[in-house]
């Protein structure tokens, strides 16, 4: 992890939550110190989607995620659905596609409407059903008016896996696949917030995708060598992390990257690249070239994977960097930085 020399400032600005280099610096310089090493497993120091602890011949995967999205209800979902999908998907990204159970902690602002809370809980239940899991324990706190903004939800999840899939297994020649269109969640949220009051059909893609991922893993077997959900920081952040941890360069064929017409139009309007904003129901697969087609076919069989595509390959040049072949020329894909999208997941 050499590409992040920046030093964390005396006060934590909003950019430290944006999923880019600043956030990595925060974790490396504050949180990891002296902790997080796990023998024969994955710990905090790996900065992966979750941890994996050895239990007999399997691994227990555990992950946690806090959700602070504004607005709480948005086109395509709400904070409840997001809380379940986020944690279920993080487990799946480590290979644990059958979550054993979730925890759910809610911190509620004084004055929050009971009906809104019930609606959030309903969507938590529905999302758990889709994922084939349930909430097994929880916690509730209420804070004074103005001490937080409405509702914060934290979920944690556990699951078992026979094989850990990390972000760092790529080597030159490997292919990269996405399970569907990029940028829908982030741009749908932006469209609701922007002062231009855009009229659009675009919806967040928020969904638990553990069953979709299971199909891909079953088809690819040991040839699936990297797996990550492109949430904060979008596809760009995910590819940079994969390239960096694996020590390879990545070349993306931009015309192959699936983007919905709505997301493309809103991105052009707001000047925001759909590759730099969050997805909440997608995965990026790194696969050995020989297995790429089989994984693609398997993913497309699932309703959430209809627009899956092979989007690029790994090369030995430019380790840690992501080159975008635009079809008209080439450039580096920038990592999201700064205040692009605070609080969207």
């Amino acid at each position, binding site marked *: 992890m050499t590409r992040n020399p920046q030093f964390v400032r005396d006060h934590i600005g909003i950019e430290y939550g944006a999923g880019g280099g600043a956030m990595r610096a925060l974790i490396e310089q504050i949180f990891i110190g002296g902790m997080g090493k796990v023998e024969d497993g994955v710990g905090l120091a790996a900065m992966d989607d979750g941890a994996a602890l050895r239990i007999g011949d399997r691994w227990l995967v555990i992950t946690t995620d806090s959700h602070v999205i504004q607005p709480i209800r948005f086109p395509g979902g709400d904070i409840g659905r997001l809380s379940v999908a986020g944690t279920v998907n993080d487990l799946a990204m480590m290979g644990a596609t059958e979550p054993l159970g979730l925890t759910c902690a809610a911190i509620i602002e004084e004055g929050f409407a009971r009906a809104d809370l019930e609606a959030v809980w309903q969507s938590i239940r529905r999302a758990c059903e889709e994922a084939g899991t349930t909430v097994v324990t929880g916690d509730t706190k209420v804070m004074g008016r103005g001490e937080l903004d409405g509702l914060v939800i934290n979920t944690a999840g556990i699951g078992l896996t026979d094989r850990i899939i990390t972000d760092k297994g790529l080597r030159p020649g490997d292919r990269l696949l996405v399970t569907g269109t990029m940028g829908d969640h982030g741009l749908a949220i932006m469209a609701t917030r922007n002062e231009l009051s855009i009229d659009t059909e675009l919806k967040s893609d928020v969904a638990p995708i553990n069953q979709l991922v299971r199909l891909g893993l079953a088809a690819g077997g040991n040839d699936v060598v990297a797996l990550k959900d492109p949430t904060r920081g979008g596809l760009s952040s995910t590819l940079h992390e994969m390239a960096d941890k694996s020590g390879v360069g990545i*070349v993306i064929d931009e015309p192959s990257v699936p983007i919905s017409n709505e997301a493309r139009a809103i991105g052009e309007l707001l000047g925001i690249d759909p590759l730099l904003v969050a997805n909440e129901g997608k995965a990026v697969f790194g696969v050995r070239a020989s297995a790429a087609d089989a994984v693609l076919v398997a993913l497309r069989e699932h309703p959430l994977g209809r627009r899956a595509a092979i989007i690029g*390959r790994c090369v030995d040049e430019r380790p840690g960097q992501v080159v975008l072949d*635009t079809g008209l020329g*080439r450039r*580096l894909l920038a990592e999201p*930085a*700064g*205040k692009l999208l605070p609080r969207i997941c």
Partner: protein
Amino acid sequence: MENVEQLRQLKFRDPQRARALREALAAVVDRIDHTPVSVMHVCGSHEQAIAKFGLRAAFPAGLDVIMGPGCPVCVTDVPEVDEAVALAKAGVRIATYGDMLRVPGTAQSLGHARAEGAHVDVVYSITHAVELARTIDEPLVFFASGFETTAVATAAVLLGDPPANFSVLSAHKYIPPVMEIVAEMPGSRIEGFLAAGHAATITGSAVFEPFVAQHGVPVVVAGFEPLDILAGLVRLVELIEAGDARVENAYPRCVTREGNLAAQEQLWCVFKPTGGRWRGIAHVPNGNLRLRDEFAGWDARRRFDIDMSALWDHAPPALVGQCQCGDIMAGIASPSDCELFGKQCTPDEPVGACMVSSEGTCKIWHQYGGHPDLGPMAERRAS
């Protein structure tokens, strides 16, 4: 409807046509007996498109496409920012575009003044500012920036009888005169100019004819889709090869020779060109647009006694001395020549104006990965 729109967009982004144009560009560059062939564009939107679509990596090695002074926010000079900051600190309410908030003055930007308590509103257009003025009793000064395209909007508002508490602090600039400056710079290698299509919709392509006649270098007006830029470059280099100094319009779907005559009439009814400094470049005769005497009542410079002397007691921040924005805007340097680029100078913490504006070369390069010229790679296609 959506499909029609998609087709319309894709027509100007078609990779096959782009390849044909790239090959044509390489062929004509090859035929020219010297290298590199140097051309300049004078528009941040051109650099945006070149960077976004990765065109710089696809230009022939023998072609040098130099970025010129094409960012109105970037060339707003320190004294102009100081005027706005001094007004704000004197308690006058200011409205301006978001980019202008962060452009550094001698010691402070408008953003700094706001952080210290000055009343500065960010607006998306001058009509926004006028609406705001109508809702308040106190004076509101609109700090106006932009080339002739934006100046027309300012002119239209002032001709529409804005409220009495509204006035304009004009930092508007006029592009044709600065092309003369750049063309006459000692050691200038510029053999042709790519002119900005949106500005030419107002001025018409004919505005460049006197320049071409005097300097003997061709000018091609080009649009902003990737194929517009490639087609404009092919034509420009063909004219250079032929030694044919003339103006050509490669953006005929928007630009005419005469331009928008009604807009021109409004522009010159309200503004007069005067000489003034452009940040980092030089004194540009006729490069600044200032309000005519008939509009003195809406001219903030005449309505207020602007005292900037207090600002000059502060030393500028230490890093400013190393900033290369001036040379970058004059086309002498590129962002990668600057020690600060991407390190001490980022969009979150800009040192120079080029890192502030979305039209600034440094901001554009940073947004699209830092270094656009990737050089050859062994494996080009992804799959």
